[in-house]
């Protein structure tokens, strides 16, 4: 057990060192999310939106900032090794996918919480943002950070399966997900066909649940139960897929290619 914890913490430690040495990482943590929140907050003021409507929009901006920071940190669990061409060095050690994913996610959680608290605090001060009940906030945020884990794991799976050349496309897909999950609007504003895709994205449900705290009726019933259920299913499936991708990478030499 102790050994497993050490392996997980090794990746948390590495993410911390990379973050400490990389100035851009510090900028990234707050700069873009802050730009998003300020833009949305100013737009809300300009349109003289009601308090709950403004909270609806700011929730999207704050959650999207925290989510992006955390999902990127999960993906860094593999990407740091890909960029340093040290993937082979890491995979010859007795680790599992669980170790580097959870280790990186833990660091992402810390950064995500910092972003959430900072943006939330700033929004309260600058735009009279308010939070719903503690229960709604905590449960939604747990769901959002688990969703970040899913997105990060998907990125890792795609890199292990298809190689590094596809990374840019992966980041595009993660941005499109934000549009589909109703980041600044209820999902019933989207075309019917797109709503079917929204229904299979966990973030949709956690955003909807969060917004019930501002009096908005959810488009999907039982958002929290469905959100956590599909999140659990995705996490299990992704760990299985990662084992398949790793097996395939051993067969086709992808680990070696990513280390050269």
């Amino acid at each position, binding site marked *: 057990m*102790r*050994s*497993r914890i*050490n*392996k997980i*913490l*090794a990746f948390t*430690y*590495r993410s911390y*060192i*990379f973050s400490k*040495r*990389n100035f851009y990482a510090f900028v990234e943590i707050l700069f873009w999310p802050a730009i998003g929140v300020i833009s949305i907050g100013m737009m809300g003021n300009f349109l003289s939106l009601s308090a709950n409507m403004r909270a609806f929009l700011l929730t999207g901006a704050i959650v999207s900032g925290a989510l992006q920071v955390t999902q990127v940190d999960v993906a860094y669990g593999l990407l*740091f*090794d890909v*960029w*340093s*061409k*040290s993937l*082979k*060095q*890491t*995979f*010859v*050690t*007795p*680790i*599992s996918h669980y*170790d580097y994913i959870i280790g990186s996610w833990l660091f992402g959680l810390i950064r995500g919480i910092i972003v959430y608290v900072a943006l939330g605090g700033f929004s309260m001060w600058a735009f009279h943002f308010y939070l719903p009940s503690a229960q709604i906030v905590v449960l939604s945020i747990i769901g959002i950070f688990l969703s970040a884990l899913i997105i990060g794991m998907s990125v890792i799976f795609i890199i292990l399966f298809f190689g590094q050349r596809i990374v840019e496309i992966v980041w595009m897909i993660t941005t499109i997900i934000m549009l589909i999950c109703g980041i600044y609007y209820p999902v019933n504003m989207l075309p019917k066909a797109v709503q079917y895709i929204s229904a299979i994205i966990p973030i949709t449900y956690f955003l909807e649940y969060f917004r019930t705290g501002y009096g908005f009726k959810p488009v999907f019933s039982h958002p929290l139960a469905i959100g956590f259920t599909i999140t659990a299913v995705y996490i299990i499936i992704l760990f299985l897929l990662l084992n398949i991708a790793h*097996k395939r990478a*051993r*067969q*086709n*030499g992808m*680990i*070696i290619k990513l*280390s050269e």
Partner: protein
Amino acid sequence: MKKENIIEVRGIHKTYKSGFFGKRKTYALRGIDLDIQKGEIFGVLGPNGAGKTTFLNILIGQLETDEGSVKVMGHDVTRNFSNNIKTRMNMCSGNPNFPWSLNVEEALRFYGMLYGYSGKDLKYRIEHNIELFDLDKNRKVLYDELSTGNKQKLAMAKAMLNDPEILLLDEPTTGLDPDIAQKTRKLIKKIHGKSDITTILTTHIMPEAEELCERIAFIRNGQILAMGTKKELKKMTKTKDLEGMFIALANQ
């Protein structure tokens, strides 16, 4: 008395597929059979592209064979390379790559933690290897800023963190200045002399093989052309040294 086999390889084949639908094939290994005995330094020699690194990557679990079987320490690792086996092995490559933002001490701490170490045990292993590989002056230097020789020392230090029973060295002195290469060879001998560690070394530097290896397999085009002690190989090829043996076998 014959020593126990620590690695048993039977009829392994490896083909790399590339191009559209994997139609272009490169045959890296074509039916390798060999046994490596516990505690020996076994050399895998051969020209560039012979399949040496592919062979080592299979032994360390980073590649899977298409055919054949691999047994390490009595365990069949052909399809499933367990973490229990990984804990007892390690690898050091020439021109190594490590995370560029970590300094020497941090890199050793990171890899030590990956083997499950923590606290005093981890600290001892880091300090012991920093001392063993003369890295004390560079302990706070980032990997990216290390000289080639010190990068190689770090790779060796990392490879010794878990006191491996099997150590794979893939051209460990490639690209090093002669004096540093000589020091690296001394370190390999020192490590081997201290413990019963089984070492598998690939190289195409013949004096290195002459100095370090007890038995040698010569690979060309993914096949073993000759295998035996240095004396046996020289006798077989009617040559005086391994350089002559290499040229004779490479042009066979």
